[in-house]
């Protein structure tokens, strides 16, 4: 379909502008309904006004500060709109240019008014919306849609069947019981790892399955390009994050919105990694902006609010097969230091890839494992199922103490920044512990490790070019895969990592076959070729990507002869993140 056809334009307009159902007939939320059910237009308005009030107070301290903030916003917006050259440019470029020209001559009062207008427009654009009817619709529709995509020939016979199909694909593990008790006692902030744009969708499914409430989260603009997805995103509490906007004011609005929602008790979600992992490695250095806003939100609730608790849930999302692996891995290698934050036209935006992906997963149990780690309070203390924060020796501690000094509870941005940094470090540790390794990670590691062993002195980029040059005899591959699995199982017993359900007791031959089947049934590039008596490493880039998840343990699981090779691999976490 040509991009500018009337239908396409109409579809795009539908995506951009939120489609909302009339609210007449909606019953008021009951006491057992999740917090999001009370996010009605009036509440939305209150949140927007609070966000605007706070940003104005923080930014508009004096005339110089006002001018600086507006100048920064104008500059960034003008540059962005000039690059985009689309309908938004036509609509908005003129206004920004006019503002930029007038700034120097405006009085303080005029600047305040301009700040108010700009902030209000941004907050209005960002703020989400929630319609319980759409939520109910999504709960019923999602499994059916996914099942339909997976097996287009057969109409799903009923919700139960569709749900069963989805259930087989997705495994949910970890502190589910605890979370089921905690979500009524405090505000949960889910902070998962990020490898794919499917993450928010599978996570939504996981929450649903566990009887956990819907969450508020910042959905990137790419999730709004598809009209169907966009409709659901707009009505399920997601707030819209346009990552092309670099204006400082916009980032302040985003952080403040997230904080205000957490303060008001709405369960939330965001990805502290910021963007999908290009290398496939587990996130180590987290972005602290939104995390800090939530840590401050906890302090505010103690000092000024209801004293409610905010609990962070480290979560790992683990895939046997990653939808966008090829684009992500290419970007990882192309980079040499710079990240393209947005990958246009990757697999997520191609329907054909979705279909191929889900078809590949038919019959593949536990293709995706979501694992919820133990919740932490804002100060890094683990929280038990009763909602008590626990000191390292296990005795309960009062979290409100952390915002007290000499008896007085107080707000302190510097203190909370320090708490946030410490919390970020704890989350990164939790991600490692709660990682669930899959067949594809193991098989890729053995093959890539062999490749590295046979190419001493080469760097990563040289090795990536060696397509089809290194092979392993099948018996050796099976032996090493078996040994690797056994060593990882040992680490699992010590609580240091987890193995996917399909891995723990499987025969090495099955592990290898599973990996090859999964890769070669979906990816355009051939990761590895089964030649019968041997297996050949075809695409080192894909292999490197899949085995990058194992790097934190590479040295400890290597046989003695491969220790040095494993050390080189482990160094990749630092050298090529």
């Amino acid at each position, binding site marked *: 379909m040509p991009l500018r056809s009337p239908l396409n334009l109409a579809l795009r307009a539908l995506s951009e502008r939120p489609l909302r159902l009339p609210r007449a007939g909606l019953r008021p939320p009951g006491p057992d309904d999740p917090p999001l059910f009370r996010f009605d237009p009036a509440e939305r308005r209150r949140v927007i006004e609070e966000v605007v009030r706070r940003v104005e107070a923080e930014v508009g301290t004096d005339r110089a500060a006002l001018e600086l903030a507006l100048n920064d916003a104008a500059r960034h917006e003008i540059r962005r709109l000039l690059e985009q050259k689309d309908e938004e440019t036509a609509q908005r470029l003129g206004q920004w240019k006019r503002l930029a020209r007038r700034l120097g001559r405006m009085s303080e009062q005029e600047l305040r008014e301009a700040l108010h207008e700009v902030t209000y427009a941004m907050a209005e654009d960002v703020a989400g919306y929630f319609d319980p009817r759409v939520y109910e619709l999504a709960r019923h529709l999602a499994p059916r849609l996914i099942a339909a995509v997976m097996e287009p020939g057969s109409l799903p016979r009923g919700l139960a069947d569709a749900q069963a199909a989805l259930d087989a694909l997705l495994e949910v593990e970890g502190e589910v019981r605890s979370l089921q008790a905690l979500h009524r006692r405090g505000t949960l902030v889910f902070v998962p790892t990020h490898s794919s744009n499917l993450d928010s969708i599978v996570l939504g499914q996981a929450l649903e399955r566990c009887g956990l409430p819907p969450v508020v989260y910042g959905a990137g603009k790419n999730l709004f390009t598809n009209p169907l997805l966009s409709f659901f995103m707009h009505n399920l509490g997601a707030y819209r994050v346009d990552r092309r906007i670099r204006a400082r004011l916009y980032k302040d609005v985003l952080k403040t919105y997230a904080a205000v929602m957490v303060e008001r008790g709405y369960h939330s979600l965001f990805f502290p990694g910021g963007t999908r992992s290009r290398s496939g490695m587990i996130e180590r250095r987290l972005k602290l902006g939104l995390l800090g806003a939530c840590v401050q939100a906890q302090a505010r609730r103690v000092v000024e609010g209801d004293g409610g608790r905010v609990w962070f849930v480290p979560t790992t999302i683990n895939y046997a097969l990653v939808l966008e692996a090829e684009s992500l891995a290419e970007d990882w290698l192309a980079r040499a230091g710079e990240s393209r934050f947005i990958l246009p036209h990757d697999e997520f935006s191609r329907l054909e890839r979705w279909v191929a992906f889900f078809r590949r997963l038919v019959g593949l149990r536990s293709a995706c494992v979501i694992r919820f780690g133990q919740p932490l309070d804002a100060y890094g203390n683990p929280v038990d199922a009763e909602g008590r924060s626990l*000191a*390292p020796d296990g005795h309960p*501690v*009062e979290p409100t103490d*952390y915002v007290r*000094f*000499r008896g007085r509870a107080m707000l302190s941005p*510097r203190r909370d920044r*320090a708490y946030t940094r410490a919390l970020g470090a704890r989350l990164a540790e939790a991600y490692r512990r709660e990682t669930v390794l899959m067949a594809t990670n193991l098989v890729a590691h053995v093959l890539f490790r062999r490749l590295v062993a046979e190419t001493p002195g080469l760097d990563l980029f040289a090795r990536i070019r060696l397509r089809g040059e290194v092979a392993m005899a099948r018996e050796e591959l099976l032996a090493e895969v078996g040994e690797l699995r056994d060593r990882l199982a040992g680490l699992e017993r010590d609580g240091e990592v987890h193995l996917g359900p399909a891995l723990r007791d499987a025969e090495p031959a099955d592990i290898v076959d599973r990996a090859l089947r999964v890769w070669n049934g979906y990816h355009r590039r051939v990761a590895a070729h089964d030649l019968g008596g041997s297996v050949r490493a075809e695409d080192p880039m894909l292999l490197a990507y899949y085995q990058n998840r194992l790097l934190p343990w590479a040295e400890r699981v290597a046989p003695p002869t491969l220790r040095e090779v494993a050390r080189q691999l482990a160094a990749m976490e630092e050298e090529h993140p």
Partner: protein
Amino acid sequence: MTEPPLRIAVLGGGPFGRALAAAAARRGAEVLLWSRRAQQPPEPSVRLGGELSGVTGADLLLLAVPSPYVEALAEGLAPLLVGRHLLVHVSRGLLGERLRTIGDLLVRRTAARRVGALAGPLSAEALSAGAPAAAVLGTAFPEVEEAVRLALGGGPLRIETTSDRCGVEVASALVGLMALAVGYAQRSGLSPATLSALLSRALQEARRLGEALGAQPQTFEGLAGVGDLLAAALGDGRPEVRIGRALAEGRPLREAARSAGGHVEGVRLASRVAAFARRRGLQAPLTEALAQAVEGRQSGWQALIAALQA
């Protein structure tokens, strides 16, 4: 409206702990001195306590025990500490093979999160006597800064602050190690020029190692790094320097350590820091030479001196 006096607990009855307790009491704080050995209060108003549980009432805890005892102390404090406790330690040690800082240990083993490290060319004598002195406090938390200023600052003690707690801890430990070299070099009869070259190299090496441990390089230019090393070189009489001299005289380590009296962190660190440098592929010739000297071998040191004098 007057605030109630700051409640402080000093843990450790050695000279430094006593000096801290005395200084804080003179500034008007309510001070409890916890120690495992019986003693007289350093100032009349200082309360003495033998029960660790007695420290929980404090707002600020100052830990002044030698590093070998810190882990045991942390275990003892674990059931007692809660979120409002502020901890500041003055130790010069680094723990284990991975050279973990004491602040990190405290944060991991207890519920306390607001932790700081006090370091610099501050001696127990100067603190006790109320003589002019300077120290640096490394902490990310404004309340820890405020509490330490209330407790110890405003008088003859000048307190600088930095948010790089890790840097202060690492610099303080590595300079303690380098002070061994100072004593050794002085006894080896090096000229001022050569000694300065040595000090300069020592600082660079400490900074290099420190960065690998997570410190910010500029912390080494401050009181915890350069300031402290200069104090050692200018003759503040610290035990590391005396031990260094004794080693240069060919005396065995045990005898040297005994004559210096008390706990000497630098000696314990030498071998571990050298091993760390080797594992990470970092250039650390001075540390390597010190580790050898501490182990009774002089060859590395001789080579170093020769290189400096060439």
